[in-house]
């Protein structure tokens, strides 16, 4: 028997033997665990983003989002931006905005022509990452991001500042809705990486005191377009 088979056979026997020690459980109604967001999803999402240490900007339309993004880029003093290709970012005119603000745009098309080493150096040196998301979760203030060509995982990870632009129709009430959405896309279609982001990078490893920006972005700014 191969090591795999003998291990699995051992587990099978043990699982069977272990059934006599199964714990006594109270019945749990199906809806238990679903918390929902209640009321206005945008408002709740915004409140939760602030609560976890992010900064949220709720704006009325795409034009207002563009202006806010411009202000945020100025505030960050960014010279280069690692960007997703995304319909929403196109609609607010991200490329033109970056060009006029004299911020170097780095996205898939620029990176694709570089060697692995050059790509690495390039993404590591970007000052800000600009993304949208796949779904946002109101109850927790979370962004659900799927990796795809053109929507790289490093954009929300490597730069010290992460700016995400979210549309209100992307917001769902509960984590359970977010996971159900993933399920509805088809499990075979599951992206190689799905990341739930709930706040700026944090650690409590020094004397239990919160310190931000240890590995991921220390600044997490979210623009919500109503």
């Amino acid at each position, binding site marked *: 028997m191969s*090591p*795999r088979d003998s*291990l*699995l*056979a051992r*587990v*099978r*026997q*043990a*699982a069977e*033997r*272990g059934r006599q*020690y*199964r*714990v006594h*459980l*109270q019945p*749990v*109604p199906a809806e*238990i*665990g679903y*918390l929902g967001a209640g009321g206005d999803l945008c408002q709740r999402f915004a409140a*939760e983003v602030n609560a*976890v240490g992010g900064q949220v900007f709720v704006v009325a339309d795409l034009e207002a989002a563009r202006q806010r993004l411009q202000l945020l880029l100025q505030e960050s003093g960014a010279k280069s931006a690692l960007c997703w290709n995304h319909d929403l970012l196109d609609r607010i005119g991200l490329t033109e905005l970056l060009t006029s603000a004299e911020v170097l745009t780095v996205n898939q098309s620029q*990176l*694709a022509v570089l060697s692995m080493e050059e790509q*690495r150096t390039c*993404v*590591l040196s970007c000052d800000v990452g600009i993304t949208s998301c796949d779904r946002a979760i109101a*109850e927790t203030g979370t962004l659900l991001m799927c990796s*795809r*060509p053109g929507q*790289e*995982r*490093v954009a929300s*990870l490597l730069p010290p500042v992460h700016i995400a632009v979210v549309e209100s129709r992307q917001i769902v009430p509960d*984590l359970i809705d*977010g*996971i159900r959405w993933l*399920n509805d896309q088809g*499990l075979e279609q599951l*992206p*190689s*990486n*799905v*990341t739930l982001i*709930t706040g700026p*990078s944090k*650690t*409590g*490893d*020094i*004397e*239990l*005191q919160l*310190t931000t*920006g*240890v*590995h*991921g972005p220390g600044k997490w700014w979210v623009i919500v377009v109503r």
Partner: protein
Amino acid sequence: MTDYVRETHHEFLAASKEALADPRLQQILGQLGDTLGRRNREAWAALPNSDLIRERARAIKDQTLAELDQHLETLEKNVIARGGHVHWADDGAEACRIIVDLIRQRQKPARSVSGGPIATVVKSKSMTSEEIHLNHALEVAGIEAVETDLGEYIIQLAHHRPSHIVAPAIHLSADQIAEILSKPAGKRLPAERETLAQFARRALRQKFAEADVGISGANFAIAETGSIVLVTNEGNGRLTCALPRCHIAVMGIEKVIPRLDDLPYLLKVLARAATGQKLSIYTQLITGPRKPGELDGPEEFHLVILDNGRSRILGSPLRESLFCIRCGACLNACPIYRSVGGHAYGGVYAGPIGAVLTPLYDGLSANHHLPHASSLCGACQAACPVKIQIPELLIRLREQLHDEPEQKSRFEALSYGLWAWTLKRPWLYRLSTWLATRTIGRWKRSDPWISRLPGQLAGWTKRRDFPTPAANRFRDWWHKEGRNESA
């Protein structure tokens, strides 16, 4: 050999004594209950139906374990379907060998002749890798392994073992951490949190950029999708499987859950129990290597599935210990942990759950103090996100200890035998209680505690007083007065 790889077993009582006399440690342990412990209690209080949600999480674990072999096979099938590789390890040594071989196969010939490490590995925090002493195995194989969780990075530099499941460097002060980090910095760093964290960010970025392989654990693995789930707050877990070309994850067999739909319930209780957050900052679902056209993520994904004694536990009355999702809540709640800290437990896993896991994984007799390192107050069970009945498990282990050959004492067996013999004979029992009340009971009427028993019995009174018999027997009082009072 450093403390990082444990060669000898700690003497729990001696180590506790030392810990109790360390004012710095006492101060930080005192804060633990007011920070993580308080956040956990508040999180349960703020969560509607928290008890039922935890019950649901517990049910997921219980049901999964009942058919664990099938879920593992499904997991394997789906990891492979998504382009990943699965390896099975009976024990820690086997898992280490698999991982070292995987890294060696990737080794570039040019690097091996230079005399430096043959490869650089970045590691995301993983208790399972601590359990199998992976860092030591990598070091011996000439592979540089860098822990990237800030706390783990600090204790790796200091050659300490983790003293808390989620806050491994909790035993160190900012001053001590500054001293430890000053060494790789090559200059004196101030004891300021921001500065220290920024230094670690820069130093570790460099390592991430160079590393060929990333190693992580797995908080969960989803059978139906072949995904592993990694939960971190710092983002090092994301870097570990975004930059290196190869990602190796190591997990115990008990980490699998059947469905993607099971995940949100476990995530909800995990973050609340660990740190009082609604969700940890970063939760990743990793499914196979990068897909065509993606510019980041590993090109190779390997999953090492580890038994290391777990299948033995699965078929035993201590099965419930496999529910543990490694949140650390029981440590923060435990009056013993909060008095003596993690190192006193002498194993990789500390606190109440460590007092269960260490004897199970590492040998009961070698860790015979641990099942007794609890007042059985139940605070651990109340804090647990999957409601593990830790006090029950500790009592089970105490029972099992009596059957360990090394723990058998002829004197103890004789004493209990004599006691049982007496109890079985009512006339003898009556005589002995009569004698006890007439003698010690009456002599010690003013001070009803004995602080030192004679001979071998002194072991009992070493750490507690023994109550003297009453001056009168209950049955005598009952015959004289009690009967009338009740009427």
